[in-house]
């Protein structure tokens, strides 16, 4: 038998048509078991025939699928013809009042979404206003009003008439505070106090005003260094205070001298946080009453060490004042050529003010704290 089959197959190998017939019968399982075995043997030994079998199978699947899809489409077209597409289209097309449609379709979902949004807004609002100290940052330079200026001028004409002609004719726009860093007239204040300055005058507690120029600006830490360039200026006695290099602990009592008005004002408080506005590590948060004009004032501890520069306070939060830490003053000083500084303020533990009571301390340092007047 097998020999006979082989012969048949051998003959049909030259006859493509009959090979197709055999392959088709083979795929449909129409061959007898003996014929199938013989064909499988042939297929295993001949890659060309094997390929033909595979190709035929792919083709058969494709044509079956083609037929199926064709009849499906025919059936669906028939059903489709029964649907009133025109009126459906009219109903479902984008309505002019699309929002209205959307609302009708998703009423409940939208209601839930809306209440959720409301809830979220309320929670965020309450979190922001109840639990977080999150006010806006308000720098404390003083905008000098016309009325105050009028008073200023009166005071000056009475007290220091010989110098009035030297002062600029216009009125000071902004005021702040500054303090001496060296005996030869270097002062420290806030960058924002002198930011827009055309000219800067500083005035001490006796009412003497001197012209100063800005020698260093550091917007990042909000520090500026001024130099008094007035001929009238005489070198100061050596500085009574020291700069404290190290940080200071929470709860430490501190005070500041500043010029929120035309005379020096003392403010007293304590360090309430080692970080400043929204966690700024370059600043302290101080619980101390300050007002516009206090910006740039020195912040001193009980022993008369300067530990920072009053910079700003926070809106909407009671008693949150910020002060730049004193080590950034040192960084600013390092930016100035040391030979022009004269005697540099040193960071020592020994402090002339140490041991003196508050009144005596203030008595000594008030000559070194200046009102900064900015003209532009």
């Amino acid at each position, binding site marked *: 038998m097998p020999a006979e089959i082989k012969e048949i197959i051998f003959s049909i190998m030259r006859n493509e*048509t009959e090979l197709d017939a055999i392959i088709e019968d083979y795929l449909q399982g129409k061959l007898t078991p003996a014929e199938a075995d013989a064909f499988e043997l042939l297929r295993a030994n001949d890659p060309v025939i094997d390929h033909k079998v595979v*190709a*035929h199978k792919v083709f058969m699947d*494709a044509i*079956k699928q*083609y037929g199926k899809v064709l009849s499906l489409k025919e059936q*669906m077209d028939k059903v*489709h013809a029964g649907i009133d597409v025109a009126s459906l*289209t009219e109903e*479902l097309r984008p309505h002019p009042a699309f929002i209205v449609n959307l609302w009708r379709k998703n009423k409940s979902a939208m209601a839930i979404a809306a209440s959720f949004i409301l809830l979220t807004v309320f929670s965020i609002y309450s979190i922001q206003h109840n639990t977080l100290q999150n006010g806006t940052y308000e720098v404390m330079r003083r905008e000098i009003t016309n009325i105050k200026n009028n008073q200023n001028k009166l005071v000056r004409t009475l007290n220091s008439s010989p110098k009035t002609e030297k002062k600029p004719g216009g009125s000071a726009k902004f005021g702040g505070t500054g303090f001496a860093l060296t005996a030869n007239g270097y002062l420290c204040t806030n960058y924002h106090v002198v930011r827009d300055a055309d000219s800067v005058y500083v005035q001490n507690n006796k009412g003497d005003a001197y012209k100063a120029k800005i020698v260093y600006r550091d917007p990042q830490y909000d520090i500026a260094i001024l130099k008094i360039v007035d001929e009238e200026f005489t070198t100061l006695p050596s500085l009574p205070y020291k700069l404290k290099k190290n940080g200071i602990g929470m709860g430490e009592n501190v005070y500041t001298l500043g010029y929120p008005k035309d005379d020096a004002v003392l403010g007293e408080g304590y360090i309430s946080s080692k970080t400043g506005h929204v966690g700024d590590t370059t600043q302290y948060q101080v619980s101390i009453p300050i007002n516009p004009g206090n910006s740039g004032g020195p912040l001193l501890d009980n022993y008369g060490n300067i530990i920072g520069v009053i910079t700003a306070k926070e809106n909407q939060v009671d008693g949150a004042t910020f002060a730049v830490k004193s080590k950034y003053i040192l960084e600013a000083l390092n930016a100035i050529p040391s030979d022009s500084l004269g005697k540099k303020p040193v960071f020592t533990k020994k402090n002339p003010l140490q041991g003196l009571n508050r009144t005596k301390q203030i008595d000594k340092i008030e000559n070194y704290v200046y009102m900064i007047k900015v003209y532009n």
Partner: protein
Amino acid sequence: MVSKKLSDSVPTDREVVLGILNNSEDALNRLYIGYFPMILQFILNNNGDEDDAKDVYQEAIIILYNKIKSGDFELSSKLKTYIYSVCRRIWLKKLAQSSKKTNNVSDFEDVIAVEVDVEYHEEKDIQFDKMGAALDNLGEPCKTIIQDFYINNLSMQEICEKFGYTNTDNAKTQKYKCLQRLKKLFFQS
């Protein structure tokens, strides 16, 4: 509301699956009528017209049909969601091909991932087009003989009588000659 009236006649998902597995025309027809408005609404609201809706919807039904027939269909989601997702996918592709705007799609239903099914269908669709083209190029009487035998499942005897061949062997020989030409056309295209 038309859509409400139609939705009453929508067969359950189980009815559809069993109906398709058992070659029930009625199940497919009711399925077709049931979800067409949903797709029509989606296409109309996303830069298409009713003819686009028909094409996309029929493709989706074919995909669903093949998936159910192949046996690996599990009712993991609603048929409605499945059909909507497939249509959405196909339509977004078509929009992208004609480089129309595809952002801000207005959706009306939930969407599930059907990328694999759609891509598989695209391959099949290419084969479908190839087969159609090959048959058209084949010419008569070959085209009808092949269709009658392989698609309409007529016997050789019936074909023999229909085309007036003297005996079935002649008809068979003719059929295989036609088949060889068709295979050539199909595989070469």
